[in-house]
């Protein structure tokens, strides 16, 4: 029973981690919270609904379509809503934040308009397949979600730590001027980052659709807030923190529902944040010195 809940928690947590990675990457290079990230995630989920339930195509096509659409959204977000505000004199440092809130409202309304309110089922052929190990029941879907999430995290970690483009991203995140003096085209790096972050959100959208079988236009908001909670928990802009924080929150929420009061499920994230901020204001993995000072 406990093991089963742990598996549920890790499945949910690995999705949270993917969402939080998108937040943390953008925060790292731009120093802003991308409030549209949750809605990009929601659009990814709807692309999944469209491809699998409406068009009846296989799941892998849903992944490709969601990645393509959310990557494009990321590109547009950067070019239309963020870049024009950057480095302009007299533009408040809050402007890009507000701008992403605008995009989030736009995307939510758009999907409301196109898909309608309410829940949309996310069908896939193996949603009900389960394996029985002793007294424990595991759904194949859970394993798939977990494997995809962990693989994404490993790929991203490798990319950031070992490849030239990944190092350029980290250099840009630490100091934009220094990175450009070292030959990094920081505009391009920022665009790439927002695209990757958005595509991660899109993938997470499909994973949530697979896990919960239901998708609606409001789901972006709560996921966005949780992603935000996780990066505060893990340390702003910190990649390891996003992963650990996501898994932690997933397990904590699942345990509360299983052994406590399910009504407190969504409160867990925010109660955890309050405690972390009181005890370790820089987040679990954050450094003492303020990296967010830019």
């Amino acid at each position, binding site marked *: 029973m406990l093991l089963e809940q742990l598996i549920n928690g890790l499945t949910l947590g690995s999705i949270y981690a993917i969402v939080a990675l998108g937040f943390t990457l953008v925060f790292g290079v731009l120093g802003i919270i991308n409030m549209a990230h949750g809605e990009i995630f929601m659009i990814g989920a709807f692309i999944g609904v469209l491809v699998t339930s409406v068009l009846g195509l296989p799941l892998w096509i849903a992944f490709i379509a969601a990645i393509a659409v959310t990557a494009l959204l990321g590109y547009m977000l950067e070019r239309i809503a963020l870049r024009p505000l950057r480095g302009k*004199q007299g533009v408040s440092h809050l402007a890009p934040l507000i701008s992403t809130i605008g995009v989030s409202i736009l995307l939510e309304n758009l999907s409301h308009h196109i898909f309608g309110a309410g829940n949309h089922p996310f069908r896939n052929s193996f949603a009900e397949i389960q394996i029985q190990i002793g007294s424990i029941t595991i759904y194949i879907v859970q394993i798939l979600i977990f494997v995809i999430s962990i693989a994404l995290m490993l790929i991203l970690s490798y990319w950031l730590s070992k490849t030239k483009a990944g190092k350029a991203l980290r250099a840009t995140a*630490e*100091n934009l001027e220094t990175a*450009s*003096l*070292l*030959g*990094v*085209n*920081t505009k391009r790096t920022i665009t790439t980052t927002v695209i990757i972050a958005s595509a991660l959100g899109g993938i997470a959208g499909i994973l949530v659709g697979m896990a919960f079988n239901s998708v609606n236009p409001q789901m972006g908001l709560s996921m966005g807030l949780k992603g935000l909670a996780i990066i505060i928990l893990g340390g702003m802009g910190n990649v390891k923190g996003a992963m650990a924080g996501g898994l932690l929150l997933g397990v904590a929420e699942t345990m509360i529902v299983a052994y406590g009061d399910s009504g407190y499920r969504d409160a867990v994230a925010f109660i955890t944040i309050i405690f972390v901020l009181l005890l370790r204001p820089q987040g679990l993995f954050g450094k003492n010195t303020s990296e967010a000072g830019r």
Partner: protein
Amino acid sequence: MLKVKGIETFYGKIQALKGVSLEVEQGQVVTLLGANGAGKSTTMKTISGLLKPKHGTVEFLGENITGLRPDQLLRKGIALVPEGRAILSTMTVMENLEMGAYHRSDKNIKKDIEEVMEQFPILKERSEQLGGTLSGGQQQMLAIARALLSKPKLLLLDEPSMGLAPLIVADIFKMIREIKAAGTTVLLVEQNAKQALKVADYGYVMETGKVIINGEAKDLLEDARIVEAYLGKKSS
């Protein structure tokens, strides 16, 4: 090699440079002196593309490079080691060096990094350590080594000796001599006027956004105005 003509650079409404002109010949070390706030760093940032001048032009190897971005200028051969070193403190010493060669795609990068590490054993010893954990002097070595890995034609150094102990300062000036000997042109901003003029071929002195004196370094070392303002600490 480098021709700066009448550049005027602003921070918002504040005019920091009021028409600065200077030239750097290939193979020379040229030093730029001046009191705090004279505009030396602003000049360096304008040449390297971090700031864009409102008026005036910068020419490099006969090409007008005014207004290009730092990454574009690095590809043309201009590298800046900024004031305060700008080490990537969350990346390892090795990664800092690799970033130095970021724009290169030739096969010698590994070999060049090896060579740099032979030259600075401390960097080899600390190669897996985070850049931010190095001492000030070590960070300055790393910053210069990193800039050299981009294989610049013109190296801009902004106060490399700032805040370092005299022994380390001597090391830094020795390095500058070696860089010159290896054929790289250097534009050096310094507070340490005497030492700077000793390594330099030519010198400029700035005051409140303008060049007020220029001449051969050996002449400037004798120049009464400079001796009085920057070298005149003999009594103390």
